[in-house]
């Protein structure tokens, strides 16, 4: 895969996988209003994922559609970061995952909105409005739960600590990232780490939580989700998500 194509698949896979996770909340949300809100965020991501994967299919030039890419690739071909494939856990875990991902997502899209590739810039400009709202929601919940009751505080702290080691991957750069950054196609992920730390740190402080300090990060040594190395959770997620297309090839609505 060319770096350009690799980028589109990484972006698309983050969206599709997290959308699938958020969809799992439907019918299980703590209140009806939150149930709908989580589904909305998931659907925003699904819409964005479709745009990235459609473009990826066109760029690849082998006739693969967004559906082929989403439903007929196996887990080692998926390029999402490990953070988004992690199970939902409790509501605090889901919100910690959103907090970490949404802020990185917004910074990435802001960079991509200035991409040398006009189509990428266009998709990013559209997506970042949706993601700005995701950020607001995640900030809100982390602050409410962190600065809430003794139990909600404790569970929110556990959640941000537990997911912390999965954040490093979003700011690591491999050869693909470096080539794209040099060509002006995408922002250098390493440059997003400081603004991300500042934004996430401010929310964690306002939530009266302690900022995680662990240095050890998943995937730092042998590659992570961006290189196709995933946790044991992605296979199960894909099995459920892809079942219909695998069992009934070509089935359509």
């Amino acid at each position: 895969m060319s770096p350009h194509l690799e980028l589109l698949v990484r972006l698309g896979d983050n969206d599709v996988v997290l959308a699938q996770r958020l969809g799992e909340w439907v019918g299980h949300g703590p209140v009806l209003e939150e149930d709908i809100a989580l589904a909305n965020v998931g659907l925003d991501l699904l819409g964005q994922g479709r745009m990235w994967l459609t473009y990826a299919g066109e760029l690849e030039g082998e006739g693969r559609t967004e559906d082929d890419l989403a439903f007929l690739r196996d887990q080692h071909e998926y390029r999402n970061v490990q953070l988004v494939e992690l199970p939902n856990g409790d509501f605090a875990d889901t919100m910690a995952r959103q907090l970490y991902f949404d802020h990185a997502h917004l910074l990435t899209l802001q960079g991509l909105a200035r991409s040398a590739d006009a189509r990428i810039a266009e998709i990013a400009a559209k997506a970042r409005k949706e993601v700005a709202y995701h950020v607001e929601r995640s900030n809100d919940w982390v602050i409410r739960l962190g600065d809430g009751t003794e139990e909600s505080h404790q569970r929110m702290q556990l959640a941000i600590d537990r997911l912390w080691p999965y954040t490093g991957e979003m700011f690591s750069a491999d050869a693909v990232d470096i080539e794209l950054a040099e060509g002006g196609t995408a922002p250098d992920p390493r440059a997003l780490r400081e603004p991300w730390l500042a934004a996430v740190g401010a929310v964690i402080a306002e939530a009266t939580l302690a900022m995680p300090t662990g240095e050890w990060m998943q995937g730092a040594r042998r590659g992570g989700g961006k290189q196709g190395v995933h946790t044991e959770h992605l296979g199960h997620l894909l099995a459920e998500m892809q079942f219909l297309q695998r069992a009934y090839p070509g089935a359509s609505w």
Partner: protein
Amino acid sequence: MKNEWPLWEIFIRSQHGLAHKHVGSLHAVDAGMAVKNARDVYTRRNEGVSIWVVRSSDITASSPAERDVLFEPAASKIYRHPTFFPMPDEVKHL
């Protein structure tokens, strides 16, 4: 039900509407969350450009028992409707 979140009444102003219209109600812990929830529950299909939220308990309503006393007297006073005046053709939007 003491752990239930308070109820809020939601008003949405649509793209071309001049006034906010009541669209329904929802639960939220405070006004800020009520606005966010209203955005997610009631504006998913591009229904609005502005949201108002009001705590349901802050609304004072007329009593259904007083319906006759309050509204019945107006029913027989058709002369209060401005339907007896011929409208010039140039007047639009009436």
